[in-house]
């Protein structure tokens, strides 16, 4: 071992270097904690969060009740009910049941949707106190859940 290495070992230089690294990190600019829920994180647009059924500008649902999402879902948790409209001969959506409890937010349903109606919106605060509220019906899918404002 060279002389410098021996000196470094005696004077605990490696330990002191480690101490300085941790000391430097104390600077307030380095702190990365977000005080949730006052500071909420910035979520990207592609985030796969709460599922929503979109409506067009007139308030009519965009969903054509094709059932592609129900077929694509690996967990088979979407149930689409529809009626055949006698005039236009097209399917009209009556009920849309989505079991959020079994959903793994994979996004295959929003990929399969041909009319761009079903999307997994960036809302992520979905926690509830019991399982009953997890089976979403059509109304909840269209309205979404309001965002809570927390004071502390």
């Amino acid at each position: 071992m060279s002389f410098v290495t021996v000196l470094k070992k005696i004077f605990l230089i490696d330990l002191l270097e480690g101490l300085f690294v941790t000391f430097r990190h104390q600077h307030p600019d380095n702190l990365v904690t977000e005080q949730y829920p006052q500071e909420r994180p910035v979520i990207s647009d592609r985030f796969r969060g709460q599922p929503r059924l979109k409506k067009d500008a007139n308030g009519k649902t965009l969903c054509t009740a094709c059932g592609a999402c129900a077929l694509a879902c690996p967990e088979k948790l979407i149930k689409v009910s529809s009626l055949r409209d006698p005039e236009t001969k097209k399917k009209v959506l009556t009920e849309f049941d989505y079991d959020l409890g079994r959903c793994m937010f994979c996004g295959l349903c929003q990929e399969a949707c041909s009319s761009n109606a079903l999307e997994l919106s960036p809302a992520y605060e979905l926690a509830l106190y019991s399982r009953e509220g997890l089976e979403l019906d059509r109304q909840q899918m269209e309205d979404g859940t309001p965002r809570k404002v927390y004071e502390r």
Partner: protein
Amino acid sequence: MIKSFLGYLHSGVTPGEAGNLIWISIYVLLVFAGVSLGVMFMNWFERKIMAHMQVRMGPMRVGPHGLLQPIADALKLIIKEDLMPSNADKLVFWFAPVCVVMTAFCAFIVVPFGRTHAITDMNIGVVFMLGVSSLGVLGVIMAGWASNSHYSLMGSLRSGAQMVSYEVAMSMAVVSAVMMTSMATGTGTLSMIGIVQAQMQQHIWFVFSFFPVGLIALAVFAIAMVAETNRAPFDLPEAESELVAGFMTEYSGFRWSLFFLAEYTSMMAVSSIATTLWLGGWLRPFPNLLGGRNWDLAFSLVPGLTFAILALLCFLTFTRMPRIRAMRGDTAGLGGLACLLGILAVVLLLPGVRERVQDIFWFTSKVAFFMYFYVWGRTTFPRYRFDQLMTIGWKVLLPISIAVVILTALIGVRQDLFALVRR
């Protein structure tokens, strides 16, 4: 009786030396309260400093910036269920934490916060402190035995072995410091107050005397005291990720908090030894180099100004609190704290008070410096394995400390000879 009560105030000695029972009791209560407050503060301080070094914020919710967190922790521990294993040795199980806490607090009988600010001054002060700390090892072993679990027993025996091994190196370092006390007067002293007075007479803090021997002695003592108190990087016996969770495994609730209290108290006790022996105890920096009335005045203003700055920081944070209804309590508390610190700052700036109290301030700040190093070391270093730990204690620190003793003796004798010849 009132005369003896007031008469003590004019004596220049500690109440133990004066034999004044009432003042002894008052000082005991004050030291007990102060040390307990220090432990609570250390809890908050450690969590905050560790957090900041780990780029996060630590407790922020309970009180402003988590200042009430220790109170919340204490409450939780008190109301937690106190378990006792069914096959445990009941008497020993009950007594072990009591023993550890008693010995840790007993060490504070001789700790001098100032010339008259100690409970008493024994002429064997240092040895008393080291001896009482050693009794704490007994409590640790009792705890492991009484838990009726071979993992706890293994952990406590390891912990006991570690504490005993490092005490030897600690004592050698202490011997070298004690030898330095005899340089001016020709007779050394073991009393804590006497050691600080020797530093005062020799116009030097022992850490700088016989440079670099004093520094090496302090370094040896510092490493040994970290191992003595089972703190990182020597905390294998109480580490969470190791298999043997240590002697504290079976303890919960209040009994565990007693161990926790004892650990922090013994940390402060050994830091007090280090401060008294090497860092000049209650002496302010540069009492002779920067002497004279003006410098004395300037230094005596430092405690008051420190609290004034703290009060200012509190006040600034108070003005920046969000003005929402839910945070009324926090804001009010912070404002109250700012006022309290401000009043304390003003009191400490009064001429009558500041001369008497500045000793305590300097002593406490030096001990706080060691506490910061404890936390800093815990955050930075990985843990030593037990056999490596014992190797360091016996094969590295002990030879170095013996060498330090011999060097101190040689240099001391040489200086004495020179002084003799010159006379």
